């Protein structure tokens, strides 16, 4: 069986163009060295991994180690400089819940719009709408504009809509950390269920206790390079050492 997600030798650099100020423009840039015009930062260097269907893959690392860049590459919102990515067509992303919501529209209107943005047809959304409402437990509030919602309610609507889109791969960035304890557990169970039904998950998280419950394997990124890859416990051990935490003590 071919893997659901396969990345080979991904490289990605960000070119930051240093803006020319008006003063520099008129007075020349004698004090600026030539190569300062562009600065290049490697966000990812030679990253390879694969995720099988029905498997969850954890990505851990410091802030700025390239985790979010990796997710953006998988999502397709940015393109790699080098390397290949193989993915099924339907990818779900729990990167920023409610990115497409508009505060003046009701929960219902937002669910339909967001569903469409995520690639669902109107018919699909209509069929799943009751289930979306039920999962989010929003009930009557679905008819109110979401500017009246609390942050937790928006999260509920966002998660609930995304989890109902037919996706073969879900990309998850820290969203396990939001919502109240009960809803969090419900979301977690839902992700496990998604996995058991043959979906693949790529999870970025800092909640180290939770990760081994859902992921068998993972990798640790350090300054854009793969510092460790393999079984989740080895990766987490490596990560704790990197973070300066005493591995023996924590485990």
């Amino acid at each position: 069986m071919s893997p659901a997600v396969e990345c080979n030798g991904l490289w990605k650099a960000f070119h930051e163009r240093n803006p020319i100020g008006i003063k520099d423009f008129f007075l020349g840039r004698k004090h600026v060295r030539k190569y300062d015009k562009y600065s290049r930062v490697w966000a990812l260097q030679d990253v390879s991994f694969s995720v099988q269907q029905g498997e969850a893959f954890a990505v851990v690392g410091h802030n700025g180690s390239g985790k979010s860049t990796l997710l953006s590459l998988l999502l397709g919102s940015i393109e790699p400089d080098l390397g290949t990515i193989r993915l099924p067509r339907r990818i779900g992303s729990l990167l920023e819940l409610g990115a497409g919501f508009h505060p003046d529209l009701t929960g219902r209107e937002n669910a339909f719009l967001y569903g469409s943005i995520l690639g669902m047809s109107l018919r699909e959304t209509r069929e799943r709408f009751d289930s979306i409402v039920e999962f989010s437990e929003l009930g009557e509030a679905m008819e109110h504009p979401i500017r009246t919602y609390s942050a937790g309610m928006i999260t509920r609507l966002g998660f609930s809509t995304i989890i109902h889109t037919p996706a073969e791969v879900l990309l998850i960035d820290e969203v396990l950390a939001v919502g109240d304890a009960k809803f969090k557990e419900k979301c977690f169970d839902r992700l496990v269920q998604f996995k058991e039904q043959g979906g693949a998950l790529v999870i970025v998280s800092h909640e180290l206790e939770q990760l081994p419950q859902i992921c068998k394997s993972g990798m640790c990124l350090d300054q854009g390079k793969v510092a460790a890859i393999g079984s989740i416990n080895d990766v987490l051990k490596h990560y704790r050492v990197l973070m300066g935490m005493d591995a023996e003590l924590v485990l």
Partner: protein
Amino acid sequence: MANHRFRQLFELLYLLVLKDLKVRYKNSVLGYLWAIANPFAFAFVYWVAFKFIMRVQMENYSIFLISGLFPWLWLSNGITQATRSYQNNSSLIKRVNLNRAVLPLSNIIQEMAHFMFALPVIVIFLALNGGHAFYWSWLWQLPLMMMLQLAFIYPVALIFAVANVYVRDIEYLVGIGFSLLFFATPMVYPIEQVPEAFRGYFALNPLHALIASWRAIFLHGQIEPGLWGYFSLWIALLTVLGFFFYRRMSGRIGELL
């Protein structure tokens, strides 16, 4: 499969346009009535300004003005909004994998809807000025001309929207460009008033072909084959240009936003 994806894009477009319209009118007392009231008030202001204050001596000047004004508003408002569409939707572009070419298109179609709301206003002004207020040929001329204008605006808007991600100055230049073009295009004056020496250059402006075509339809229920042909040439040119520009430049939108 391809059919399914096309349908899905169409629905997305529909929901995006619906969202813009809803958001625009939801919190006002008059609601959707504004969609008609606004163009009416707008036409009224221009009518008063040019007819009673500036006292332009041309015959049927007010309908001449108004028949060109609304297609122009669709064009300039649509392109101005679409130019900012990637900035306005940056969180969406970074966080969701969607067909980005749809976003500027939704702005343009939203403005097209407003143009359609303004059609009754044009008819009212035609009738008020004792002109011929309805032609049966409009039934095919209006939709066709709207499709032509849409096909003209979309590649331009797409190019500006992508370019504005690279160089933010574009949105300011577009604003200035349209106020310049408003007077450079025979809009508040007929092209016959342009000195003969320059008239040829003014006629090269594709926006003149557009506005003059609309006038011929609204005022006489006629199409001008020459203008349509010239305008279609521009559409073909811009479509090719827009396609290649978008394909070449749109890949980096995600990281530049």
